[in-house]
Protein backbone atom coordinates (compact mmCIF):
# COMPACT_ATOMS: atom_id res chain seq x y z
CA UNK A 1 0.00 0.00 0.00
CA UNK A 2 1.26 3.42 -0.85
CA UNK A 3 2.18 5.61 2.08
CA UNK A 4 0.27 8.62 0.85
CA UNK A 5 -2.87 6.55 0.57
CA UNK A 6 -2.20 4.92 3.91
CA UNK A 7 -1.96 8.27 5.69
CA UNK A 8 -4.63 10.06 3.79
CA UNK A 9 -4.26 13.16 1.68
CA UNK A 10 -0.77 14.47 1.19
CA UNK A 11 -0.05 18.06 2.07
CA UNK A 12 0.45 20.45 -0.80
CA UNK A 13 4.05 21.12 -1.60
CA UNK A 14 5.25 24.07 0.40
CA UNK A 15 8.23 26.28 -0.18
CA UNK A 16 10.87 26.31 2.55
CA UNK A 17 9.89 29.00 5.02
CA UNK A 18 13.36 30.15 5.96
CA UNK A 19 15.55 31.28 4.46
CA UNK A 20 14.38 31.85 0.89
CA UNK A 21 16.60 31.00 -2.00
CA UNK A 22 18.57 33.89 -3.40
CA UNK A 23 17.03 35.37 -6.50
CA UNK A 24 18.96 37.27 -9.11
CA UNK A 25 15.98 38.87 -10.73
CA UNK A 26 14.88 38.25 -14.25
CA UNK A 27 17.00 36.35 -16.69
CA UNK A 28 17.64 39.48 -18.70
CA UNK A 29 18.58 41.36 -15.57
CA UNK A 30 21.01 38.62 -14.58
CA UNK A 31 22.56 38.53 -18.04
CA UNK A 32 22.87 42.28 -17.97
CA UNK A 33 24.49 42.21 -14.53
CA UNK A 34 27.04 39.65 -15.67
CA UNK A 35 27.80 41.62 -18.83
CA UNK A 36 28.33 44.74 -16.77
CA UNK A 37 30.59 42.85 -14.40
CA UNK A 38 32.65 41.72 -17.38
CA UNK A 39 33.01 45.37 -18.34
CA UNK A 40 34.22 46.05 -14.80
CA UNK A 41 31.26 48.21 -13.97
CA UNK A 42 31.58 49.07 -10.29
CA UNK A 43 27.87 49.79 -9.99
CA UNK A 44 27.18 46.22 -11.13
CA UNK A 45 29.59 44.91 -8.53
CA UNK A 46 27.86 46.98 -5.85
CA UNK A 47 24.55 45.50 -6.97
CA UNK A 48 25.95 42.00 -6.77
CA UNK A 49 27.19 42.63 -3.25
CA UNK A 50 23.91 44.19 -2.18
CA UNK A 51 21.95 41.15 -3.37
CA UNK A 52 24.20 38.35 -2.24
CA UNK A 53 26.69 39.44 0.41
CA UNK A 54 24.66 38.60 3.50
CA UNK A 55 23.92 35.10 2.30
CA UNK A 56 27.47 34.38 1.18
CA UNK A 57 28.81 35.71 4.46
CA UNK A 58 26.34 33.55 6.38
CA UNK A 59 27.44 30.44 4.49
CA UNK A 60 31.12 31.20 5.10
CA UNK A 61 30.48 31.95 8.78
CA UNK A 62 28.63 28.72 9.37
CA UNK A 63 30.91 26.46 7.32
CA UNK A 64 33.90 27.95 9.14
CA UNK A 65 32.21 27.25 12.44
CA UNK A 66 31.81 30.92 13.29
CA UNK A 67 35.42 31.86 12.70
CA UNK A 68 36.39 35.47 12.29
CA UNK A 69 37.79 34.97 8.80
CA UNK A 70 34.31 34.35 7.36
CA UNK A 71 34.33 37.91 6.13
CA UNK A 72 37.59 37.35 4.28
CA UNK A 73 36.13 34.26 2.61
CA UNK A 74 33.02 36.16 1.54
CA UNK A 75 35.12 38.98 0.17
CA UNK A 76 37.37 36.56 -1.70
CA UNK A 77 34.34 34.96 -3.33
CA UNK A 78 33.11 38.34 -4.55
CA UNK A 79 36.55 39.34 -5.75
CA UNK A 80 36.67 36.15 -7.81
CA UNK A 81 33.43 37.19 -9.48
CA UNK A 82 34.95 40.60 -10.11
CA UNK A 83 38.31 39.49 -11.44
CA UNK A 84 37.05 36.51 -13.44
CA UNK A 85 33.39 36.96 -14.36
CA UNK A 86 33.98 34.66 -17.32
CA UNK A 87 33.95 31.74 -14.92
CA UNK A 88 30.26 32.34 -14.25
CA UNK A 89 28.62 30.40 -17.06
CA UNK A 90 25.00 30.92 -16.10
CA UNK A 91 24.09 34.46 -15.16
CA UNK A 92 20.90 33.29 -13.47
CA UNK A 93 22.92 31.04 -11.19
CA UNK A 94 25.30 33.73 -10.04
CA UNK A 95 24.14 33.34 -6.44
CA UNK A 96 24.74 29.59 -6.59
CA UNK A 97 28.16 30.23 -8.13
CA UNK A 98 29.08 32.59 -5.31
CA UNK A 99 27.78 30.09 -2.73
CA UNK A 100 29.86 27.31 -4.26
CA UNK A 101 33.00 29.45 -4.35
CA UNK A 102 32.48 30.59 -0.76
CA UNK A 103 31.83 27.03 0.43
CA UNK A 104 34.95 25.72 -1.27
CA UNK A 105 37.07 28.60 -0.03
CA UNK A 106 35.84 27.96 3.50
CA UNK A 107 36.52 24.22 3.22
CA UNK A 108 40.01 24.98 1.88
CA UNK A 109 40.68 27.20 4.86
CA UNK A 110 39.53 24.50 7.22
CA UNK A 111 41.78 21.96 5.53
CA UNK A 112 44.76 24.29 5.83
CA UNK A 113 43.91 25.13 9.40
CA UNK A 114 43.73 21.55 10.65
CA UNK A 115 45.10 19.68 12.44
CA UNK A 116 47.31 22.40 13.89
CA UNK A 117 44.61 24.67 15.19
CA UNK A 118 41.34 23.62 16.79
CA UNK A 119 38.16 25.16 15.49
CA UNK A 120 37.31 28.49 16.99
CA UNK A 121 34.22 28.83 19.02
CA UNK A 122 31.77 31.03 17.21
CA UNK A 123 31.09 34.57 18.28
CA UNK A 124 27.52 35.03 19.32
CA UNK A 125 25.69 37.52 17.17
CA UNK A 126 24.95 39.78 20.08
CA UNK A 127 26.07 38.64 23.53
CA UNK A 128 23.98 41.28 25.25
CA UNK A 129 20.85 40.14 23.46
CA UNK A 130 21.67 36.55 24.31
CA UNK A 131 21.93 37.54 27.97
CA UNK A 132 18.53 39.13 27.76
CA UNK A 133 17.00 35.94 26.45
CA UNK A 134 18.30 34.18 29.49
CA UNK A 135 21.32 32.16 30.38
CA UNK A 136 19.60 28.89 29.64
CA UNK A 137 18.98 29.76 26.04
CA UNK A 138 22.42 31.29 25.56
CA UNK A 139 23.96 28.19 26.99
CA UNK A 140 22.02 25.96 24.63
CA UNK A 141 23.02 28.13 21.67
CA UNK A 142 26.64 27.81 22.67
CA UNK A 143 26.32 24.05 23.04
CA UNK A 144 24.69 23.71 19.64
CA UNK A 145 27.39 25.90 18.13
CA UNK A 146 30.09 23.78 19.73
CA UNK A 147 28.46 20.57 18.51
CA UNK A 148 28.24 21.95 14.98
CA UNK A 149 31.84 23.12 15.10
CA UNK A 150 32.90 19.63 16.11
CA UNK A 151 31.29 18.09 13.02
CA UNK A 152 33.51 17.01 10.12
CA UNK A 153 33.81 19.89 7.67
CA UNK A 154 31.80 18.41 4.83
CA UNK A 155 28.99 17.30 7.11
CA UNK A 156 28.76 20.81 8.47
CA UNK A 157 28.90 22.28 4.95
CA UNK A 158 26.04 20.03 3.82
CA UNK A 159 23.99 21.03 6.84
CA UNK A 160 24.68 24.72 6.22
CA UNK A 161 23.70 24.56 2.57
CA UNK A 162 20.61 22.41 2.89
CA UNK A 163 19.24 23.08 6.37
CA UNK A 164 20.28 26.66 7.03
CA UNK A 165 20.32 28.07 3.51
CA UNK A 166 17.45 26.03 2.15
CA UNK A 167 19.24 24.84 -0.97
CA UNK A 168 17.93 21.80 -2.79
CA UNK A 169 19.83 18.56 -2.50
CA UNK A 170 20.82 18.66 -6.18
CA UNK A 171 22.22 22.16 -5.83
CA UNK A 172 24.07 21.27 -2.64
CA UNK A 173 25.47 18.16 -4.29
CA UNK A 174 26.84 20.25 -7.16
CA UNK A 175 28.41 22.69 -4.76
CA UNK A 176 30.10 19.99 -2.75
CA UNK A 177 31.06 18.00 -5.82
CA UNK A 178 29.29 14.84 -4.64
CA UNK A 179 26.16 12.88 -5.52
CA UNK A 180 22.71 13.60 -4.08
CA UNK A 181 22.93 10.34 -2.13
CA UNK A 182 26.23 11.45 -0.64
CA UNK A 183 24.67 14.76 0.42
CA UNK A 184 21.86 12.88 2.15
CA UNK A 185 24.41 10.68 3.84
CA UNK A 186 26.40 13.72 5.00
CA UNK A 187 23.22 15.32 6.34
CA UNK A 188 22.10 12.18 8.15
CA UNK A 189 25.51 11.69 9.73
CA UNK A 190 25.64 15.33 10.79
CA UNK A 191 22.24 15.13 12.45
CA UNK A 192 23.12 11.83 14.09
CA UNK A 193 26.33 13.35 15.47
CA UNK A 194 24.31 16.24 16.83
CA UNK A 195 22.01 13.83 18.59
CA UNK A 196 24.97 11.94 20.01
CA UNK A 197 26.47 15.19 21.29
CA UNK A 198 23.36 15.69 23.40
CA UNK A 199 22.65 12.02 24.04
CA UNK A 200 23.24 12.15 27.79
CA UNK A 201 20.43 14.64 28.28
CA UNK A 202 18.25 14.01 25.28
CA UNK A 203 15.02 13.64 27.27
CA UNK A 204 15.83 16.67 29.35
CA UNK A 205 16.28 18.64 26.15
CA UNK A 206 12.81 17.80 24.97
CA UNK A 207 11.50 19.56 28.05
CA UNK A 208 14.02 22.38 27.84
CA UNK A 209 13.15 23.19 24.25
CA UNK A 210 9.46 23.12 24.88
CA UNK A 211 9.96 25.64 27.72
CA UNK A 212 11.85 28.12 25.58
Amino acid at each position, binding site marked *: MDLALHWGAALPAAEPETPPKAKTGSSRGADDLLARLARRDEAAFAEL*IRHHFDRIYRIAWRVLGGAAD*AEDVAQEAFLKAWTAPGQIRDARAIGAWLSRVATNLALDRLRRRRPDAPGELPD*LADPAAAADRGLQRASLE*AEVAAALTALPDRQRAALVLVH*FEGLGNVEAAEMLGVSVEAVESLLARARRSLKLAFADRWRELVQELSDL
Partner: protein
Amino acid sequence: MKQNDTNGHDRLRQLYAAYGADPARWPEHERWRYCDTPPPELVEEHKDAHLIDRLLARHAVPPTPVQDHRQLIAGAAAAPSARRLIRGRRVPLLMREWPAALALAASLAIGVWIGAAGIADDLLPSLLAGPVDSDTVALDPPDNLDFDSGGGT
Protein backbone atom coordinates in the same frame (compact mmCIF):
# COMPACT_ATOMS: atom_id res chain seq x y z
CA MET B 1 1.74 -4.07 -0.88
CA LYS B 2 3.81 -5.02 2.08
CA GLN B 3 6.93 -4.41 0.03
CA ASN B 4 5.66 -0.93 -0.94
CA ASP B 5 5.07 -0.10 2.71
CA THR B 6 8.57 -1.17 3.61
CA ASN B 7 10.09 0.87 0.81
CA GLY B 8 7.96 3.86 1.73
CA HIS B 9 8.95 3.62 5.37
CA ASP B 10 12.58 3.22 4.49
CA ARG B 11 12.54 6.34 2.40
CA LEU B 12 10.58 8.24 5.00
CA ARG B 13 13.12 7.18 7.60
CA GLN B 14 15.88 8.52 5.34
CA LEU B 15 14.03 11.78 4.86
CA TYR B 16 13.68 12.26 8.60
CA ALA B 17 17.32 11.40 9.10
CA ALA B 18 18.67 13.70 6.39
CA TYR B 19 16.24 16.60 6.20
CA GLY B 20 14.39 16.56 9.51
CA ALA B 21 10.75 16.44 10.42
CA ASP B 22 9.69 19.53 8.52
CA PRO B 23 8.55 18.49 5.03
CA ALA B 24 9.21 22.01 3.77
CA ARG B 25 12.88 21.07 3.97
CA TRP B 26 12.46 17.82 2.03
CA PRO B 27 13.06 17.48 -1.70
CA GLU B 28 10.03 19.01 -3.32
CA HIS B 29 9.05 15.87 -5.21
CA GLU B 30 8.96 13.85 -2.01
CA ARG B 31 6.82 16.07 0.15
CA TRP B 32 3.77 14.04 -0.80
CA ARG B 33 5.07 11.39 1.58
CA TYR B 34 4.33 13.64 4.51
CA CYS B 35 1.34 13.32 6.76
CA ASP B 36 0.65 14.93 10.13
CA THR B 37 0.74 11.61 11.89
CA PRO B 38 3.78 9.50 11.13
CA PRO B 39 3.29 5.73 10.88
CA PRO B 40 3.61 4.02 14.28
CA GLU B 41 6.90 2.38 13.28
CA LEU B 42 8.50 5.77 12.69
CA VAL B 43 7.20 7.78 15.61
CA GLU B 44 10.56 7.75 17.40
CA GLU B 45 12.46 8.77 14.26
CA HIS B 46 9.99 11.59 13.72
CA LYS B 47 10.40 12.82 17.30
CA ASP B 48 14.19 12.72 17.07
CA ALA B 49 14.14 14.56 13.76
CA HIS B 50 11.84 17.20 15.22
CA LEU B 51 14.08 17.71 18.26
CA ILE B 52 17.19 18.01 16.11
CA ASP B 53 15.35 20.60 14.01
CA ARG B 54 14.65 22.55 17.15
CA LEU B 55 18.24 22.27 18.28
CA LEU B 56 19.45 23.55 14.93
CA ALA B 57 17.03 26.43 15.22
CA ARG B 58 18.98 27.44 18.33
CA HIS B 59 22.13 27.92 16.31
CA ALA B 60 23.36 31.47 16.65
CA VAL B 61 22.74 33.98 13.91
CA PRO B 62 25.99 35.13 12.30
CA PRO B 63 27.12 38.52 13.58
CA THR B 64 26.91 41.51 11.32
CA PRO B 65 30.01 41.79 9.15
CA VAL B 66 32.46 44.34 10.47
CA GLN B 67 33.47 45.70 7.10
CA ASP B 68 31.22 47.93 5.15
CA HIS B 69 30.26 46.88 1.64
CA ARG B 70 31.81 50.08 0.37
CA GLN B 71 35.22 48.86 1.47
CA LEU B 72 34.78 45.72 -0.58
CA ILE B 73 33.74 47.73 -3.60
CA ALA B 74 36.72 50.03 -3.15
CA GLY B 75 38.97 47.00 -2.82
CA ALA B 76 37.57 45.53 -6.01
CA ALA B 77 38.20 48.73 -7.90
CA ALA B 78 41.85 48.37 -7.00
CA ALA B 79 41.91 44.67 -7.76
CA PRO B 80 43.49 43.53 -11.01
CA SER B 81 41.43 41.87 -13.69
CA ALA B 82 41.70 38.17 -14.49
CA ARG B 83 44.21 38.83 -17.24
CA ARG B 84 46.56 40.29 -14.70
CA LEU B 85 46.29 37.34 -12.39
CA ILE B 86 48.44 34.28 -12.69
CA ARG B 87 47.06 31.39 -10.70
CA GLY B 88 45.31 33.70 -8.34
CA ARG B 89 48.44 35.55 -7.36
CA ARG B 90 48.95 39.21 -7.96
CA VAL B 91 51.98 39.71 -10.17
CA PRO B 92 53.58 43.13 -10.53
CA LEU B 93 53.25 44.71 -13.93
CA LEU B 94 56.99 44.68 -14.64
CA MET B 95 57.24 40.98 -13.88
CA ARG B 96 54.23 40.17 -15.99
CA GLU B 97 54.75 41.70 -19.43
CA TRP B 98 58.16 43.25 -19.52
CA PRO B 99 60.52 40.27 -19.38
CA ALA B 100 59.82 39.34 -22.99
CA ALA B 101 60.10 42.95 -24.11
CA LEU B 102 63.36 43.41 -22.22
CA ALA B 103 64.83 40.26 -23.71
CA LEU B 104 63.90 41.38 -27.19
CA ALA B 105 65.36 44.84 -26.69
CA ALA B 106 68.58 43.39 -25.23
CA SER B 107 69.06 41.00 -28.13
CA LEU B 108 68.46 43.83 -30.58
CA ALA B 109 71.02 46.05 -28.84
CA ILE B 110 73.62 43.28 -28.78
CA GLY B 111 73.01 42.63 -32.47
CA VAL B 112 73.49 46.30 -33.33
CA TRP B 113 76.66 46.45 -31.24
CA ILE B 114 78.11 43.34 -32.85
CA GLY B 115 77.32 44.68 -36.27
CA ALA B 116 78.80 48.11 -35.55
CA ALA B 117 81.96 46.73 -33.98
CA GLY B 118 82.64 44.48 -36.95
CA ILE B 119 82.93 41.40 -34.76
CA ALA B 120 80.62 39.52 -37.04
CA ASP B 121 82.95 40.08 -40.02
CA ASP B 122 85.57 37.88 -38.39
CA LEU B 123 83.33 35.42 -36.61
CA LEU B 124 80.56 34.73 -39.09
CA PRO B 125 82.49 32.93 -41.84
CA SER B 126 84.11 30.54 -39.40
CA LEU B 127 80.89 30.04 -37.53
CA LEU B 128 78.98 29.34 -40.70
CA ALA B 129 81.63 26.98 -42.02
CA GLY B 130 81.60 24.97 -38.81
CA PRO B 131 83.94 22.09 -38.09
CA VAL B 132 85.41 20.33 -41.14
CA ASP B 133 86.13 16.69 -41.22
CA SER B 134 87.40 14.37 -43.87
CA ASP B 135 83.97 12.97 -44.69
CA THR B 136 82.41 16.32 -45.39
CA VAL B 137 81.24 16.66 -48.96
CA ALA B 138 81.19 20.14 -50.42
CA LEU B 139 77.81 20.69 -51.96
CA ASP B 140 78.59 24.04 -53.48
CA PRO B 141 81.57 24.33 -55.82
CA PRO B 142 84.05 27.16 -55.27
CA ASP B 143 83.28 30.31 -57.25
CA ASN B 144 86.55 30.31 -59.08
CA LEU B 145 86.20 26.98 -60.86
CA ASP B 146 86.35 27.31 -64.65
CA PHE B 147 84.26 24.58 -66.17
CA ASP B 148 84.35 26.06 -69.67
CA SER B 149 88.06 25.72 -70.11
CA GLY B 150 87.95 22.07 -69.23
CA GLY B 151 90.57 22.39 -66.55
CA GLY B 152 90.99 23.41 -62.99
CA THR B 153 92.30 26.64 -61.66
